[in-house]
């Protein structure tokens, strides 16, 4: 009993240690004051949350004097401009996101517009916009900044490195893992026995289990991190999901065997005239559609979940006039609570589906053709049930 208390105290202290520095970075900024359009503000807030950001802001409010107070920490901005590498902290932008604050570093001027860093032309002193609100005297730069999403990826990466190496070490001395490993072990076995083994095939699954486990836990942990109040939206970034989908694409393209390429480029069992047409369709399917569906599914599910939760929280402001403060707040609380519960399920389901489909695609690429085709009177191959089944998947 005592040990449990000690353990939980230790983890609590760790959490506090990580998030205590937030109070250091409190910045004053002149607010506009006056009446704000709640609907537009909520819209802008949700848009801002869905995007990656250059500073880690936890919350902000306007105090009685009309000052805007921000709580969070600045993150390093690393950009490759036309003059070379430039680094500075994002706090130099003073939370400005519409290009009004210009940071000059060694002769290069930068402005932040909608969470993107622009480099201004040498003689420009302010950003000018055209009718579509695009900057006319600046251009985007190669942005290698440690953004909020990068922090999330690094955090989860370190967490996985720590917890799984600890789990692996425990098997050297004990038969049964202790602590957090006891939660992870059944999940590892589940991914191996229920996802990798049946979908990749008994013969090859060992080679790919490592990748499938990594991708499963990476997506699952990041999805769960997105449900914490720290406002991460890592798996809702197209760049992150595209990167994961490209990993799967490379793995099944590189490890595809002769039969796989044969079925893509010169499909057996169909008339010769149709084969080139099928080759185009199959190539597009293997190289574009499969990874595209993987990346869009994860991105859209997680983004949609975040938008729904935040819109339900926004009921609190939007329906305040019709339902009163208590009514609108409790409505928002109840709805967002249940949607968040569903999101916990979706977090697991999306990690499962991504891993499952990756395993399926890899399995299709490495499947061995251990049966002979029947031939008809003219010597053509007759497709059998096993060939046809692959086309539906």
């Amino acid at each position, binding site marked *: 009993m005592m040990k449990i208390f000690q353990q939980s105290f230790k983890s609590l202290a760790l959490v506090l240690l990580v998030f205590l520095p937030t109070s250091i970075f409190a910045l004053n900024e002149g607010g506009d004051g006056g009446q704000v359009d709640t609907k537009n503000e909520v819209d802008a807030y949700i848009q801002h949350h869905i995007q990656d950001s250059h500073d880690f802001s936890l919350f902000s409010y306007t105090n009685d004097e009309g000052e805007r107070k921000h709580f969070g920490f600045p993150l390093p901005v690393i950009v490759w401009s036309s003059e070379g590498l430039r680094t500075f902290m994002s706090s130099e932008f003073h939370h400005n996101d519409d290009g009004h604050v210009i940071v000059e570093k060694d002769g290069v001027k930068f402005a932040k517009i909608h969470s993107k860093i622009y480099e201004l032309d040498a003689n420009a002193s302010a950003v000018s916009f055209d009718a579509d609100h695009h900057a006319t005297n600046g251009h985007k730069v190669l942005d290698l900044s440690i953004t909020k999403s990068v922090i999330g990826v690094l955090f989860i990466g370190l967490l996985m490195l720590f917890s799984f190496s600890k789990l692996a070490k425990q098997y050297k001395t004990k038969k049964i893992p202790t602590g957090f490993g006891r939660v992870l072990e059944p999940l590892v076995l589940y991914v191996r026995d*229920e996802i990798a083994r049946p979908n990749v095939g008994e013969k090859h699954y060992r080679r790919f289990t490592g990748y499938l486990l990594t991708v499963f836990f990476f997506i699952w942990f990041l999805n769960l991190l997105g449900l914490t109040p720290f406002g991460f939206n890592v798996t809702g970034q197209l760049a992150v999901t595209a990167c994961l989908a490209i990993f799967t694409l490379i793995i099944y393209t590189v490890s595809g065997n002769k039969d796989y390429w044969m079925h893509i480029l010169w499909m057996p069992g169909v008339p010769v005239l149709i084969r080139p047409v099928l080759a185009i369709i199959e190539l597009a399917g293997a190289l574009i559609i499969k990874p*595209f*569906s*993987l990346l*869009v*599914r994860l991105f*859209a*599910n997680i983004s949609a979940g975040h938008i729904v939760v935040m819109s339900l929280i926004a009921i609190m402001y939007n329906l305040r006039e019709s339902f009163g403060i208590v009514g609108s707040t409790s409505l928002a609380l109840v709805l967002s609570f249940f949607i968040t519960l569903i999101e916990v399920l979706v977090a697991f*389901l999306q990690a*499962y*589906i991504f891993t*499952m*489909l990756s395993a*399926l695609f890899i399995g299709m690429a490495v499947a061995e053709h251990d049966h002979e085709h029947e031939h008809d009177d003219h010597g053509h191959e007759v497709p059998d049930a096993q060939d046809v089944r692959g086309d539906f*998947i």
Partner: protein
Amino acid sequence: MYNLIGGGLIVIGAGIGLGQIGGKAMEGIARQPEATGKIQTAMIIIAALLEGLAFGALFLAK
């Protein structure tokens, strides 16, 4: 405006498809409860493929 109508049509189509998949899977499970695991796995895969298609279309409609 038109993309909103398109989005609505996509959601209707995806809803019909998901209803078919879920309903048939339920029926299959009721007929053969011992095959629940296999049916569920297949159901989730097909639902995921459909969802990928629908989200792709919604993404383009946006």
